[in-house]
């Protein structure tokens, strides 16, 4: 279980980044600092065994939260508990309870072969040999680690290294898994493999998963719940299927038979459905109707065209997670101070 309560974090940075040579010289004599409020009272809970996506645009505060939960950053105020433990209270016990992937950093030993890193991790975590062997077989089956096992980590491609990183995070069978952009650099097949591995581990071992990713496929494939953060504040919490229902627009595509003037036909539909619905002729005898979900339903569109044309096809695709998130990210949030 993960609990975050009113977490804040403010970073102070030197404001010596003026451009040009003169700016650099002035920076030598300036002690001016600026504050960046990365977290502004973040609260959320991830129940034990649940897989939750922690989403937001770049700079929203996702990675800062993950680092606080991992125990590598101290919050300015607020507190959190991961697997029933304050991350900083007993760092070694916390490290044994969690597995973390930071997509652009390595926790493997740069100059040593991958197998050697796993051998060291097994000893650091005091892993029973049977569990270490079972994990090795599982990772080899799903992530195909065998082909890179004897190569020093520094010689691996990004994709190969990420496979090893994910396996390293799961190797000691952690009860909580924190994944920060875990599929960076992976191709589609390997992404699928990672999704399968995380889901299998979560299902079989009851692992709690918190995932940050900009890849909609990761979120859809792994998570059942979402927490959306923007400008350091949680702006949405709920199940993924509920979030999909929050789509701000709905689309209905209509194909018809009959000779009507496309522009007049579109105008007619728009008048019937009302503002702010848009109707766009899309090729021969086809229109796309877009607007708020309460105005644009298949039934209303059908009713609007009945008597004018014979409808030959009507499609109302479900909104994608990408569309919903895009709308959520650009929606204005309540004003707050200081960022």
């Amino acid at each position, binding site marked *: 279980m993960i609990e975050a309560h009113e977490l804040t974090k403010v*970073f102070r940075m030197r404001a010596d980044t003026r451009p040009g040579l003169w700016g650099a010289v002035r920076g030598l004599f300036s002690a001016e600092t600026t504050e960046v409020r990365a977290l502004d009272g973040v609260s959320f809970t991830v129940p034990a065994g649940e897989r939750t996506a922690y989403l937001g645009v770049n700079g929203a505060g996702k*990675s800062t939260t993950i*680092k606080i939960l*991992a*125990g*590598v*950053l*101290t919050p300015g105020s607020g507190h959190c508990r991961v697997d029933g433990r304050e991350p*900083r209270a007993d*760092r*070694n*016990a916390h*490290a*044994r309870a*969690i597995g*973390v992937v*930071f997509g*652009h*950093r*390595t*926790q493997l*030993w740069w*100059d*040593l072969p991958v197998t*050697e890193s796993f*051998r*060291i991790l097994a*000893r*650091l*975590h*005091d892993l029973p040999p049977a569990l270490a062997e079972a994990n090795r077989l599982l990772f080899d089956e799903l992530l195909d680690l065998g082909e890179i096992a004897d190569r020093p980590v520094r010689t691996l491609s990004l994709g190969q290294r990420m496979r090893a990183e994910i396996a390293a995070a799961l190797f000691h069978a952690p009860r909580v898994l924190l994944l920060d952009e875990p599929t960076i650099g992976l191709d589609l097949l390997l992404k699928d493999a990672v999704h399968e591995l995380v889901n299998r581990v979560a299902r079989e071992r009851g692992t709690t998963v918190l995932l940050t990713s900009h890849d909609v496929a990761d979120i859809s494939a792994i998570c059942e719940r979402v927490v959306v953060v923007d400008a350091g504040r949680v702006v949405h919490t709920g199940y993924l299927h509920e979030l999909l229902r929050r789509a701000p627009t709905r689309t209905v595509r209509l194909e018809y038979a009959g000779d009507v003037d496309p522009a007049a036909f579109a105008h007619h539909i728009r008048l019937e459905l009302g503002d702010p619905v848009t109707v766009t002729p899309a090729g021969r005898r086809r229109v796309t109707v877009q607007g708020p979900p309460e105005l644009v339903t298949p039934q209303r569109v059908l009713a609007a065209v009945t008597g004018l044309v014979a409808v030959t096809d009507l499609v109302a695709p479900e909104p994608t997670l990408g569309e919903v998130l895009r709308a959520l990210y650009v929606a204005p949030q309540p004003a707050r101070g200081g960022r």
Partner: protein
Amino acid sequence: MRVLARGYGALLGAGWRTALTYRGALLLTALTTAFSLVIQLAVWQAVYANQREIADYDVSTMTTYLLAGNLLAVLLSNRVDDTLAGDIYRGDHITGMLRPIGFLGTHAAVALPYLAVRLLLVVAPLLVCAAGAFTLAAPGLAGLAWFVPAALLATTLGILLNLLVGLVGFVTTSTWGVRYLKGTVVAFCSGQLVPLELMPDATRRVLECLPFTAMVATPVRLLIGRLEGTAAWQAVGVQLLWTALGLLACGAAWRAALRRGEVNGG
């Protein structure tokens, strides 16, 4: 405790293999040290051309002092400051913090095999070569017996000093300047290049109050018999004191770094 011991054992093994990865760097270290030593000895040979002794140092004792001091300095260079500062600069130190083992202890543990490799592949061959090439003042048994623990304490101080220098990265981000300064200060203030007895009294008195003396001058003076009996005990006691202070300073610096809590690179 058993788990921690196994963990540190694993890290020592990893450090040993990593230290042997870049053998070319070891060869260059040996050549650089040898070159520097030859230059220093040539200068002192010229100084001794017209006199037998300087501050009770004859030419063979001075040669022994410089050889021991320079070889000990090889063991003060343990890369802890380099790796720690680099990790902090890139923000990669956070992956070390995710391991169930002490963060600073990990860096110190990795330094031990690195120093062992330097002892075997740089110090020992240079010592053998120097013994064949120069006239040395043979140290007594008592001097050797004092030298071993004093050299171990000096090496420990080197690790602690480098941990502190690396941790400065949390404040300065880049530690290049600090590390350069540290190298220069240690070389001049530890007595590695010139015995403290040859320095002006006021300078010597100040330097003897600093920890750098305990890193080279103390073990080498013990080796050549300059410190005996009570003076030897006192000198090693001062080394122990600096080691304890170094441990406390590292702990305090690490706690301050955690409170500051910033990670470069997102």
